[in-house]
């Protein structure tokens, strides 16, 4: 069903029943029935049921203190360059050796992630970055968001995917950002509108007083149902308003289908856990949402970083682990892939303030039941000749992995689409997804 017909459907069959005086519950049932009949149909027609969760680690995660070398020259140089910040060897959680034979381990705060890793659900992609690294947060984030190292594109890589894969699609909740009120550039598209929701519970039309809500929403709908085809702009605005109304109804009625489980407790003090809990609610509602975006900030650790960085990694792994357990409970784990990213790693040398400055490559995690667990690629070499002169961060060398390889792998092997148009070229695929 294309956009016009869905809107016609809502406009004519569903909502014309909303004559004055119809009770709110009956009204909600109408809308729900309307949207369900449309959406179930759309979902069944879809070639893939796969869902991607993007987890942004905002600020430039210190990759070197996330995945830590335990043997070889990298290990000794790591301890030499980081006199106060190196994680004591006995605290590191070993995960295995990389392609070059270096034994690696997780930061101790990643213990819950280590458990998932042990079960084979985590791929650790090493030394991810891009040539000619930009050390500005904003410039480098834009590059990751758009997959365009020139920084010229105004749409995101997943926004482009949405436009290409769902150009005639029909669902105002195809993708949802739960990373604050501003839509991340990754999801900015030319055609597909992606709601940026700071909190699912607040994604509502607020009205005062509550007793007048129903009256007001009916009037709002009536104002937006009035077609005036000769006034093109007004027409488009009212159609987007109807979309908004529909997405609110879908979301608010949908998330009630999520039932919590005493065994699955999301830590409400952990913002990422709260966001992923809302992701679980949306997924449980089965609204046809394909991409969800969450973010955890604070990784720009220029000073006294040991404690805050440990806290952040702890939040990340705790949230991911409980969310994964919830997906298993909901029977959705098979359909969900998680990807972390951060705009850059940090310098190899700690600075004079027990912190680290902006650097280059860093690790990326892919997490999910269908992930091929293990270490992909090699830990960055910390030898002087492999560092950018005068800067002290790893060169983007032959052993490094272009972040667009991760993107290409997700597009080709998870979403099963051609990645070249979206990424502006072909990138090497990584062996991280099980067929």
């Amino acid at each position, binding site marked *: 069903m294309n956009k016009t017909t869905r809107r016609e459907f809502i406009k004519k069959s569903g909502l014309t029943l909303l004559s004055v005086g119809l009770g709110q519950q009956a009204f909600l049932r109408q809308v729900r029935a309307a949207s369900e009949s449309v959406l179930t149909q759309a979902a069944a027609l879809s070639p893939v049921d796969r869902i991607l969760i993007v987890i942004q680690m905002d600020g430039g995660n210190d990759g070197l203190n996330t995945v830590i070398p335990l043997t070889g020259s990298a290990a000794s140089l790591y301890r030499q360059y980081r006199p106060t910040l190196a994680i004591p060897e006995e605290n590191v959680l070993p995960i295995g050796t990389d392609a070059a034979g270096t034994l690696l381990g997780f930061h101790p705060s990643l213990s819950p992630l280590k458990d998932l890793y042990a079960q084979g659900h985590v791929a650790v992609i090493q030394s991810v970055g891009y040539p000619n690294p930009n050390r500005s947060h904003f410039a480098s984030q834009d590059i990751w968001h758009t997959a365009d190292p020139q920084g010229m594109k*105004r749409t995101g890589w997943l926004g482009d995917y949405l436009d290409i894969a769902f150009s005639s699609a029909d669902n105002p909740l195809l993708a949802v950002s739960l990373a604050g009120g501003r839509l991340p550039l990754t999801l900015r598209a030319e055609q597909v509108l992606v709601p940026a929701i700071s909190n699912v519970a607040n994604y509502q039309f607020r009205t005062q007083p509550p007793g007048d809500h129903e009256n007001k929403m009916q009037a709002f709908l009536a104002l937006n149902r009035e077609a005036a085809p000769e006034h093109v702009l007004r027409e488009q605005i009212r159609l987007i308003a109807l979309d908004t109304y529909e997405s609110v109804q879908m979301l608010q009625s949908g998330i009630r289908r999520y039932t919590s489980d005493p065994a699955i407790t999301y830590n409400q003090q952990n913002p990422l856990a709260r966001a992923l809990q809302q992701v679980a609610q949306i997924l449980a509602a089965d609204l046809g949402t394909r991409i969800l975006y969450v973010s955890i900030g604070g990784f720009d650790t220029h000073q006294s970083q040991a404690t805050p960085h440990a806290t952040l990694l702890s939040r990340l792994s705790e949230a991911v682990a409980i969310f994964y357990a919830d997906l298993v409970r909901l029977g959705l784990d098979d359909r969900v892939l998680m990807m972390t990213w951060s705009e850059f790693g940090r310098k190899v040398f700690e600075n004079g303030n027990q912190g680290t400055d902006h650097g280059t490559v860093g690790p990326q995690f892919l997490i999910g039941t269908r992930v091929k667990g293990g270490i992909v690629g090699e830990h960055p070499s910390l030898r002087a000749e492999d560092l950018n002169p005068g800067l002290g961060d790893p060169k983007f060398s032959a052993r490094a992995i272009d972040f667009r390889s991760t993107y290409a792998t997700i597009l080709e092997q998870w979403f099963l689409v051609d990645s070249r148009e979206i990424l502006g070229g072909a990138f090497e695929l990584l062996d991280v997804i099980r067929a």
Partner: protein
Amino acid sequence: MPLDEYDKIAHLLRRAGFTAHPDEVETATARGLQATVEDLLNFEKFPDVPPDPELLAALDLSQDDFNRMRGDFLTKLTRWWLHAMATTARPLQEKMVLFWHGLFATSITGLEFWQQIYLQNENFRGNFDPDTGRLLRPAPGNPFPVGNFRRMLEYLSKDPAMLYWLDNQFNVKKNSEVGSNENYARELHELFSMGVEDVVARVPNYTERDIRQASRALTGWRVLPRAVGFTFPRVFSFDAQRHDFGPYEHLGKRGGTNADFIFDNIVRHRNPGQKQSAVGRFLGYRLFTFFGYEDPEPEIINALADVFDGAHGEEPFNIRNMLRTIFTPGNIVSEAFYSERAFRARVKSPTEYVVSLMRLLTFDRTTGRPDGLSRSSTAMRLIQNAMIQMGQQLFAPPDVSGWREGLAWITTTSVLARFNFANDVLSLGVAQGGIDLARLIAQAGLQEAMQQNRYGEVVDILARWLWPAPPSTEAREALIAYLQAPIPNVSPSALVTTKIRGLIHLMLAAPDFQLC
């Protein structure tokens, strides 16, 4: 169907300013369309909004002290500008400052010193001297906001905010081909003056080599502290040691010892066989898109470019002349401006949405002026958060190409944000900076009409106050039905206020209020 006199004047007031309250339209009608246009254009004869002492004080703080109040500074700055837009006697000046902020998009995200963005805003008003770092009202020689565009390029380029934002402070002499940093030279051509292509002829305006050569002329530009003892560097400084004295080869000409050569070439640049300059067309396009409608016809762009070029003997590069052409009836451009196609055909930006809302809801019929924004921090938090959700945080455009205007403003997130902002601001108590609804009800004469169930009249009065055109029959009926629909557990005394508040909320959330 041509617009009638009322609609013409209302349209002019909404576009050259922010709103057309019926009383404002009445005053302007008495003055006449022609005189109203001249009042708008020659805004200097009306008082400017005063500077905010707190903002001025922040300029002299030590950097440590300033950093402690950075977020607070941004709130105060945002409030000051929104309040200026909502209350000014010089609406066209504020509109043009908004225009330049969008065209010369600079963001605090690229500035170490956020104070600099305030000084840039004053620069866009003509109140800043980049050579001394001083604020003067007005600063002698400053061409902003409606003067000579050739000189604007100079004032824009020397502004420390821009020197930080696009890295030109790092641009030093390199070789006879290029300076060490071409970032600013590129945006100067691509975004700030002419665009990659001639907007009418669709031919490339310049080559990569023109950019590289221009970057040479912009070398040696630095930002230095104003004086010893000041941590806040806000002065343009020229360092001859770092400067490449040319000659340069730029846009088909060879010569020059500094950036004046580049600015002169840019504003006079014509592509082969083209009667109009590339910059005249670019600015004609941008200005008409901002004030009139999107994608104006080539004849309109060319007519405005002729004015920019001084084709009829007028002073060239003058922005005020271009604006006069848009607004003064009797030429092809203004004919388009006052046409049915332009009427209600601009999607309000979040700034225009918030400002028009605040202007209309705080309009005091006894003084004939809006009260504007309160200083309440509750209200300001609400406004700032809402504007972020609506997609426009002032002083933080998404990138150097500015905000995407038009229908791009309307998304599911922003529809909800506009709806909820209107609700929240109407629900806020007067003491917290909310709207004085009682005064509005009294001044609009709504109390009696409500009590006598003359609902249609209530809708008509408020539509005239808030909407650019009378409600359609269907909209009128829907709003009357809303007024009639009962609310459980509300006392009859509270009912009138509640329903009026609800009606205003609906009108502010309707498609009609998103357009101007």
